[in-house]
């Protein structure tokens, strides 16, 4: 306790030095918290986007091959599969199925390739809560600032919903007719004309190639029976249990005699070549988790985290050199004082502890303040809903707005990590101070 009191007193005595060092450490903490919150925000967007557009927490899908050469990403007998999932999934929230495909979307003036998703509004529990209509001005030059259309109209046949970037590229507005062209499971060209009933705000990279259409229309387009689907999406009460649930369900389906593909952490459309090259016919199930279905964009989060830590490590290294230098100066300035303390009986270890305590107290105070300021700033930026103006950046950030997510664990990590670094930087000056001989220290004159 006495050591801490002495350390505090020493810090208070050297106010200017303490303030400068604390500011440097605090700023690094603000930066670290800000960057980590940004990375968490991107991860948040990824989870939200992935589990809205591309996957449930766990996905039960598969391939059907009517001949050894070609594979269709469809599973039949969906009601039985859903029942097995409902009866055998611990921690299950709910189950939906979505039909899916890939096709050419043609407007009067343009065309683009897009992922096709057939949705049944009776099944969807969270989709319509997680989408926002885009103002018409987002995709029509001189359009109204108000949103137009009603996404619930997708319940009607021959309707579709697209995202603003697609609507802009296709040059369409609500009420226009689009032609979807694709190949049936048997390989024949097929088309369907559908009316655009709503345009949604972009959600990032995934939404740039996603078209939502009526559930039954997609089966008509692929000439499939009513009991076939693209994928069964399993939502859990706890998304962190996804891997565990995948393993469990895999065993359940194997035990029931289903053919199940080996787990391959890729989205279904990256598996066509492999599956088409395999010599079997019939149906094989494929279980994945949400992360697998968006594995082609998780690099964004990984890269952002890497850049964050790279920047922070460089800054921390610079600050560490500053701390070491300042501590060393402090020890030199106080050589006589240390000599006196040693002469009146303070042990070497106590001297080392005193210098370290000063560094730890300084670090703890500065990082705590920095973390709180950083968290406040991150929360304020997030609340401001700042729009990212460049589409390419939106795609990388997986959101059209700057989204920062502050997590308590991030603050604790930042405080612990930077305080530890401050303490480590003070070890060398502290050891040098402890090694000073009392007589030399007392005679020391600055």
């Amino acid at each position, binding site marked *: 306790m006495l050591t801490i009191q002495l350390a505090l007193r020493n810090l208070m005595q050297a106010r200017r030095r303490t303030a400068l060092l604390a500011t440097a450490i605090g700023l690094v903490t603000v930066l670290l918290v800000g960057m980590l919150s940004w990375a968490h925000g991107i991860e948040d967007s990824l989870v939200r986007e992935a589990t809205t557009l591309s996957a449930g927490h766990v996905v039960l899908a598969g391939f059907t091959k009517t001949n050894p050469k070609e594979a269709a990403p469809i599973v039949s007998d969906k009601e039985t599969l859903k029942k097995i999932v409902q009866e055998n999934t611990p921690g299950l929230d709910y189950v939906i199925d979505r039909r899916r495909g890939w096709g050419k979307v043609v407007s009067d003036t343009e065309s683009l390739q897009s992922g096709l998703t057939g949705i049944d509004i009776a099944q969807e529990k969270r989709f319509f809560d997680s989408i926002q209509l885009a103002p018409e001005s987002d995709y029509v030059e001189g359009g109204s600032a108000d949103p137009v259309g009603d996404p619930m109209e997708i319940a009607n046949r021959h309707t579709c919903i697209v995202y603003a970037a697609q609507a802009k590229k296709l040059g369409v507005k609500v009420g226009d007719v689009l032609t979807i062209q694709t190949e049936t499971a048997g390989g024949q060209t097929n088309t369907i*004309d559908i009316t655009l009933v709503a345009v949604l705000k972009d959600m990032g990279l995934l939404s740039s190639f996603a078209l939502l259409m009526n559930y039954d229309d997609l089966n008509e387009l692929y000439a499939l029976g009513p009991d076939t689907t693209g994928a069964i999406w399993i939502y859990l009460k706890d998304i962190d249990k996804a891997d565990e649930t995948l393993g469990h369900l895999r065993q359940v389906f194997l035990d029931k005699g289903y053919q199940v593909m080996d787990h391959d952490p890729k989205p279904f459309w990256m598996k066509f070549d492999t599956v088409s090259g395999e010599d079997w016919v019939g149906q094989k199930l494929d279980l994945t988790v949400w992360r697998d279905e968006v594995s082609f964009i998780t690099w964004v989060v990984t890269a952002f985290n890497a850049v964050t830590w790279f920047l922070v490590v460089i800054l921390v290294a610079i600050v560490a050199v500053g701390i070491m230098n300042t501590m060393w100066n402090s020890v030199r300035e106080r050589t006589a004082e240390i000599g006196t303390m040693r002469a009146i009986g303070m042990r070497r270890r106590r001297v080392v502890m005193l210098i370290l305590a000063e560094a730890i107290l300084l670090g703890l105070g500065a990082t705590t303040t920095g973390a709180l300021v950083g968290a406040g700033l991150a929360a304020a930026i997030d609340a401001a809903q700042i729009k990212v103006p460049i589409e390419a950046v939106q795609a990388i950030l997986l959101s059209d707005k700057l989204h920062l997510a502050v997590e308590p664990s991030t603050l604790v990590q930042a405080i612990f990590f930077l305080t530890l670094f401050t303490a480590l930087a003070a070890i060398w000056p502290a050891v040098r101070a402890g090694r000073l001989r009392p007589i030399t220290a007392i005679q020391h004159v600055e």
Partner: protein
Amino acid sequence: MLLFFSLLLGQALAAPTPEEMVGTLQTIDDRQTNNGDYTSLVFIEQKESGKADLVYQAVVYRRDADDKLVILFVKPQAEAGKGYLRIDDNLFFYDPTVGKWERRTERERIGGTGSNRQDFDESRLAIEYTPTFVGEEKLGNYTAQHLKLAAKAGEDVAYPVVELWVDAPTKNILKRQDFALSGKLMRTTYYPQWLKKYSESKGAEIYFPKEIRIYDEVQKGNQTTVVIQEVDLKTLDPSIFTKAWLESKSR
């Protein structure tokens, strides 16, 4: 009323029997098929509204007896070395820039243009489709038999319904329309001129279109023109129909 029935009767008398229509398709197929090998230089011009025109130059090698086909792109420079290989009912695409082979469907759009594999391959109309007679129509100066073809079950075709206009005296295809399963017209193809060349291996002449004009009916304004030149019917080295040969062309 009498006139109507007379016309109907006339039409019925003029209509070919199913066997005759199948015979017509077989004639079309047979005249384009060579018992030996086939080589041609093709130019594919792709026009898309709002985009710059693209022109590809490719060499087509065929061995109809074994259903083998190679399409090797030679120009422009960016496309040179890319190619398709069809062996054992499998169509593969090779891209030398990534050095990988990819399996493609039989309905592949060649080079992303409006042309399909079937535009360069041997004709298989009689095998793949069942014809019905629509009527006799004037197409410019030609009198054409208008046939409607429906894909036979299990046949791997891009378009389930095809309409053909066949020049009655020469049995050359003048016009073809391809329809989607939904009934939507997808593309219209014109064959303005047919040429023929004597094949030693076949002991007869084989026919080939000098030019194929393909109009995209969904995305109006998109057009693909295929010009076929330098048709050669000499025997080809069997190594041409291998992955190794196609890979070697880009080294």
